[in-house]
């Protein structure tokens, strides 16, 4: 191996920066190269992605329907008064 060897323990710490495009081009290339032939790190990255995607589907409390209706009404009122 060359002195360029990036250990898995280091790669796993870089993966959010990697996904965010926040790594410099040289480091990005090293992570790409590592992932190309490291199955456990590829699995780790895939699982990180699954985690991120699933987070985006979790139900989140929003305003009660009554409140949204009241806001919509307030919006309409203001604009009808302005003559729109």
């Amino acid at each position, binding site marked *: 191996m060359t002195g360029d060897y990036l250990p898995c323990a280091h790669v796993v710490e870089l993966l959010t920066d990697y996904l965010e495009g926040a790594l410099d081009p040289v480091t*990005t290339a090293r992570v790409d190269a590592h992932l190309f032939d490291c199955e456990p790190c590829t699995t780790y990255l895939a699982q990180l992605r699954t985690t991120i995607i699933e987070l985006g589907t979790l139900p989140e409390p929003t*305003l009660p329907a009554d409140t949204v209706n009241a806001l919509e009404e307030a*919006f309409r009122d203001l604009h009808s008064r302005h003559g729109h």
Partner: protein
Amino acid sequence: MPGAVLDRTIWAGVVVTEGGSRYQGVGMDVQSGPVEAGEENLVDRLRAGDGAAFTRIVRGWSPAMIKVARQYVASHASAEEAVQETWLAVIKGIDRFQGRSSLRTWVFHILANIARRQGTNESRTLPTPPVEDADSGPSVDPNRFRPVGDRWVGGWRAEAAPRSWGPESATLNAEARVVLTAALAELPQRQRMVVELRDVHGLPADEVCDILALSPANQRVLLHRARAKLREQLETYYTGPNEQAVRP
């Protein structure tokens, strides 16, 4: 490099899809696409009294706003009030929006002011965000890697390497999502806020930095630690605790 650029695009796509799909069930106008696209247009539409545009951002942004407000006030109900008051302020003040920040950033600034004031009135003592120990050190148990002296130091130990979560791991089952929700609630506060705003609510990094007063690098550190912990909880659920890791 191309990999990273591609990833970024994909993630942007995920965020957009989420924002668009989340409210499909409640008769939302999703066809007009992400709020971020055509922001000027959006501001114009609000100024012109376009009720559909208003409803879209109220439904789209309020869940994240409730989360942010909840940092300042004592209860969920108070957070809802702060969000409602914010929207009323936005309705009245939209003509004064100058476009120096994104519309959403502007809305969140109004929210922070209102929620902070409300929190003071409730004499809620704000927890000073501690420098959390959990924010430093490795995000994966070091015992899962080969030790110094090993030819492949820092590489996964075969017995402790991540294993597939099975054929259905692309989407989690209902039980795993319960695990994920519980794990989210257990995170240290700053990590939880960042990962909720970024990954649950789909806000872009720059807006999250602005809302939470974080540097971009710090935002990424908190996000990564949160994601790594959540992934680990799911791993424990799917493959059991990694015993090799706890017994080096």
